[in-house]
């Protein structure tokens, strides 16, 4: 079903959020050092709003913390895990698109040319790292409801595949033009396999010791984002969309609300009240000195089908 086009209105709350996000690479809280995930999401929110030059500060930070192997740790100098590589790669891949390149001055274009400057994000290396990062398989067992032999992406190398790192890696590979790569295809199969029989998903378990687990909004939203545009004949897709539609509301917290709306929007099921809910969530979270990641996700969700997570991954 083709996505319907809706005009984007740059309301005051979105402008205020973007101004704050543009000011600096972002940590999980404003007073804290920069971190990969909020910085990547902030970059994407700026790109989606057409402020590509403003996103360069964030992309340069990501490039600076990228390892020679191509991966990105959650914090600079922390090499225990590298799951934000997918988010950073998605942001860098989008910024490297020709339509964004044309908008730059010559100076900005030099900075943005991927791979030609030591300070630039190495997309090729990131792509290789993503393709080589595999989740550990486990023998299928009646103790678990999912197929432990499917290979996706783990949170930490050497551990099992889980829902969100797999969803983000699928998104990143699609943004790199690797939609048909066998790893992407298997990632899609894994994401569907981990959906609950009644719709939605959680961190990636379905049934444990005979008991069906509960879905959560945030991983369901990320999963549906990654599955947008796929031809999947599985009733759990529709059930998952229904779960999101019935669960998110004006009271949903910003991160879950944003991912829930992004998942619905990617499947042309955006609720009519989405814009009101997003602004209300912004107002609530602004009172608590909204965290950068919350602001970035609210802005991304407000961008609707123009959000880079939908526009460049479908």
């Amino acid at each position, binding site marked *: 079903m083709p996505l319907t086009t809706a005009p984007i209105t740059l309301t005051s709350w979105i402008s205020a959020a973007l101004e704050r996000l543009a000011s600096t690479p972002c940590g*999980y*809280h404003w007073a*804290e*050092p920069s*971190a990969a995930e909020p910085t990547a999401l902030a970059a994407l929110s700026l790109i989606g709003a057409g402020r590509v030059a403003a996103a360069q500060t964030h992309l340069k930070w990501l490039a600076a913390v990228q390892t020679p192997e191509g991966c990105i740790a*959650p*914090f600079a100098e*922390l090499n*225990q*895990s590298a*799951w934000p590589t997918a988010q950073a790669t998605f942001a860098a891949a989008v910024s490297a698109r020709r339509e964004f390149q044309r908008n730059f001055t010559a100076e900005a274009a030099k900075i943005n040319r991927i791979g030609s400057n030591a300070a630039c994000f190495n997309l090729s290396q990131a792509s290789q790292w993503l393709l080589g990062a595999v989740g*550990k398989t486990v023998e299928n067992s009646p103790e678990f409801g999912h197929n432990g032999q499917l290979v996706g992406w*783990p*949170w*930490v190398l*050497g*551990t*099992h595949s*889980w829902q*969100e*790192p797999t969803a983000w890696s699928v998104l990143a590979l699609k943004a790199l033009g690797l939609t048909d790569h066998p790893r992407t295809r298997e990632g899609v199969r894994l994401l569907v396999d981990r959906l609950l029989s009644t719709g939605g998903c*959680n*961190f990636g378990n379905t049934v*444990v*010791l*005979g*008991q069906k*687990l*509960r879905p*959560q*909004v*945030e*991983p369901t939203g990320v999963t549906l984002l990654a599955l947008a545009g796929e031809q999947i004949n599985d009733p759990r897709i529709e059930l998952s969309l229904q779960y999101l539609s019935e669960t998110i509301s004006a*009271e*949903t*917290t*910003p*991160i*879950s609300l944003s991912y829930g709306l992004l998942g619905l929007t990617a499947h042309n099921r955006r609720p009519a009240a989405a814009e009101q809910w997003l602004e209300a969530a912004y107002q609530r979270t602004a009172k608590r000195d909204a965290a950068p990641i*919350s602001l970035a996700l609210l802005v991304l969700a407000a961008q609707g089908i123009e959000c880079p997570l939908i526009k460049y991954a479908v």
Partner: protein
Amino acid sequence: MTTPAYENHNRSVTIAANKASDAQQPAGFDRRALLIATGAAVAGAIGLPFIKRALTPRQPVFIARNQRYDGPLQKTIGDGLLATRFTPQQFRGKRVLLKPNLVEPSRTSPQMTTNPAVVLAAAEVFRNWGADVTVGEGPGHVRDTEMALVEGGMQAALDDGRLPFADLNYQQVAWTPNKGRASRLGGFYFPHSVLEADYIVSMPKMKTHHWVGMTVSMKNLYGTIPGIVYGWPKNVLHHAGIPETVYDINASLPRSLAIVDGIVCMEGDGPIMGNPKPMGLILVGPNCPAVDATAARIMGLRPENVSYLALATDRLGPIDDSHIEQRGERWQELVKPFRIIDAPHLRGLSIDPGVQVS
């Protein structure tokens, strides 16, 4: 189950025996004396666990019954701390981190997470004693911590109590060597709020657990491990062994104590999908293994058969009832066996085989 700790102990018996038999004979030292010395060394090594147990300090555990979430919990918790040899003076000016269980909140399953009323009450006790109190948690199954706080009712309590919250999943971290060394992990990345705390108060919900039998104050401290490093779930810990890493985390943390929400507990398929079990209890104690062993007995479980308690015994604290000083109520009068799932790895855990459910 053998662990590096057990293997080291077994090796020490042989080393002691070999050392004694390899000793050079000084002038006038005859063979009979050598045999006696060797025998004494071996007997000493074999008797080591008994000696260790005898030397393990007794630990107090306080139990209050007939507790309610709308009752005078602040007084109960204050009484419990005083009864277990804490003093108000020792908390003055100290940083106290209250660590409840918010693993995966759901409005429809309040038995899954620590009730905010218990957390608020504990906060007031420590604040009145001059401590600097923060509530901290790193939910293991959900990345949206704010959602976990809101769904579990904790956000409203934090706002009402004007309590700061530390999201342990997303803070800057620092490396700490593994002081337990039961697992193969060389150390842990802990969030700065954990490392800067003078006291970490484990505030669990008393629940069954479908892998290790039960989860109380020791297992609750899994939530001090940040998801940003270890994932959601914290699969690195599972791969390294749940009992081993529970033990290791407890061994590696700054000073901890336990205040247990045993008012409405969880039985059956814990720690997520089980059913409510009203017990009306609050447990308090300075030693998490002793508190958990007492909780196990109340739940109708054999603490020596809970794998992480077996690891902890006499290393982190006593689980033997003879080494636990009961304050307040006697646990023997409070036993109400918890239903646990009928799985091979949990057989032998319950004192009442009839309470296993499929």
